[in-house]
């Protein structure tokens, strides 16, 4: 039996939709 601590550094594309929500903090589904 063996144990490891595994750390992964991930790189993901920023979500454009989330960026819009940050700029316009209201429910944009009402457009």
């Amino acid at each position: 039996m063996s144990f490891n601590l595994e750390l992964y550094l991930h790189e993901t594309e920023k979500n454009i939709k989330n960026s819009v929500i940050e700029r316009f903090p209201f429910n944009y589904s009402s457009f």
Partner: protein
Amino acid sequence: MLYNDLPSDEIYIKYSTPFPDNSHHDRYRIFLTNDLEINKKIFGTDSLWNNLIEWYFNSNIIDLYLNKYNIVKQKYLNYSLSLQLVRDYQNYQIKIHTDSSSRQITSLIYFPSPESDKNDGTIFFTNLIKNQKVKDSKEKFDFNDGFEEIKKFEYLPNTSIDFQVSKNSWYGVYPTKSK
């Protein structure tokens, strides 16, 4: 001591065994988060693990790793950590693979028991078949499938390995002997 505070079996989640491609056996894991209350339940109230995990999530370790590998942060990308505590049983193996391309850096810290076999460490390979067709970054290859060992790490305490994931970061673990 970290080793003595490792959680009991029932807290770990079992990987499906074997993987559909028969590449991965007898592995259990816990996905760690920065939630101190949950960590106290996993490791105990006064465990050093709680401090270590808090440090991982609250330090600037992402920048330290990016600097180490001369990776320049891109404005359109998010960088995040995931941390897993893994328990492998005897005969665990993982065939030769590079790691998923969504990973930038992989870091492994060994916690061998006194009975662990030092030959159970991670092995890095070079791809001898230059035109080896790789369908995607999750594909795994047999140990005799056109690869040559270039570095074998001993599975010993106080050992940590990290590397930048690339299309050439071939590594694996032979069937383990540690009981």
